């Protein structure tokens, strides 16, 4: 589940002190000590998953729903003008720690955070190629893993011997009366 070498797992496990703002059975939300803006938070699954593709679907849904709660809380409690939800998946995407996390970044007008891009010019042909490739492999999207209940109900086959008449203690109990 957790990896000893992973700094995030150590934070989750409490070995490294952190500023937790939320915790439940699946995830924690902590404040970034070196945040882009005060209030910059991470939502982290407790289990060790390096990238989003390894996180079970239901957990992805839950993590983003917690990120949404954190984002709303930031909106309501801090004097800010917007929030970003940001995920970096893979080193080329700027991921620095091998433990999946969602950044919730409070935004102020003219802060130094830059999540903008200069649009790349693609030809119609290139766009169509990309479209077809994606369309083709997105066909099987639709089935999502659900959380398995922790305790699967055990199937125990009960064989009850029904004893007829006076011998059945269940029937006897029914007939038991004071003074009998």
């Amino acid at each position, binding site marked *: 589940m957790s990896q000893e070498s992973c700094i995030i797992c150590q934070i989750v496990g409490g070995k490294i002190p952190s*500023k*937790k*703002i*939320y915790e439940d059975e699946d995830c924690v*939300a902590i*404040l970034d*000590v*070196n*945040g882009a803006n*005060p*209030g910059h938070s991470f939502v982290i699954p407790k289990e060790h998953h390096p990238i*989003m*593709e390894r996180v079970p*679907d*239901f957990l*992805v*849904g839950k993590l*983003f*729903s917690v990120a*949404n*709660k954190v*984002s*709303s*809380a930031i909106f309501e*409690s*801090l004097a*800010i*003008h*917007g*929030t*970003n*939800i*940001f*995920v*970096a*998946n*893979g*080193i*080329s*995407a*700027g*991921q620095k720690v091998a433990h999946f996390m969602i950044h919730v*970044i409070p935004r102020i007008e003219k*802060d130094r*955070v*830059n*999540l903008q*891009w200069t*649009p*790349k010019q693609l030809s119609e042909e290139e766009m169509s190629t*990309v*479209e077809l*490739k*994606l*369309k*083709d*492999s*997105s066909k099987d*999207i639709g089935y*999502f893993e659900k959380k398995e209940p922790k305790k699967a109900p055990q199937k125990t086959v009960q064989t009850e011997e029904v004893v007829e008449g006076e011998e059945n203690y269940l029937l006897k109990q029914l007939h038991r009366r004071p003074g009998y």
Partner: protein
Amino acid sequence: MPEEGMDQEDVAALQEKIKNMSPEELKEFQKKQCIFCHIVSGRVQAKKVFEDDKVMAILDINPANPGHILLLPKEHYSIMPQLPEDVLTHIFMVAKSLSNTALRALEATGTNIIVANGAAAGQKAQHFMVHIIPRKENDNLSFDIPQQKISDKELDIIREKLSKNIEAKAPEKKREEIPPVLKRLHEEHEKKIVDGEFKEIQPAPAMKHIQLGHDNAQKPLTGKAPEAFKKPLPPKKVSSDNKKKPKNKELPKKQSDSANLDDIARILGAK
């Protein structure tokens, strides 16, 4: 949403129009103005890469990288906090799958997932969306999230504010906790009322005193009302036999009160 080529007057007129709208009208108006709602309904063409009953994924026409996907809910929402829980979780589960798709189909080595809430965060369209941007090494794209040292004090203040606010958003526990307290308070309150021992008269005076307050012409009555209101209180605190007597004395007073109140009712009826 002022369009290009509009006069300043038109913009002003539009702003005035928006101001006077009800929330429902405003939402309908936003829908009509929203290019992404038009894409969802099929009136504007786009390169769809995925669609189901709740969401649609299209290619960004101004992509950060080839394969830049915009994932939208079909319903119009401006920002993330407006999304219902089920749509929110669904949309991000699809986002994960699409990210996976992009990694496989486009041989990307990573993906960025970005949501912008508010203009300060870089939101440009009035329709909530999730950006899924495939990444490759040296793709000339850099998202800069600078770091700054935040003091421990400030962090603690923020932590306190945020954790309280998030807790308040998860009312499951509180729903169970609060009502019993309220119930007990309510029961105690009701007991106190019963202690007053004016079962027949009590509900009526409470109502009629209010009516009295409105009618200044009935001065003798307004004078009596506070007395009757105050006297039943002391017996509650000390429940000795002596205290029962004043209660009995009060009863006739109440009756006279109610008689006068009848008069007022009649006068009010006459008016």
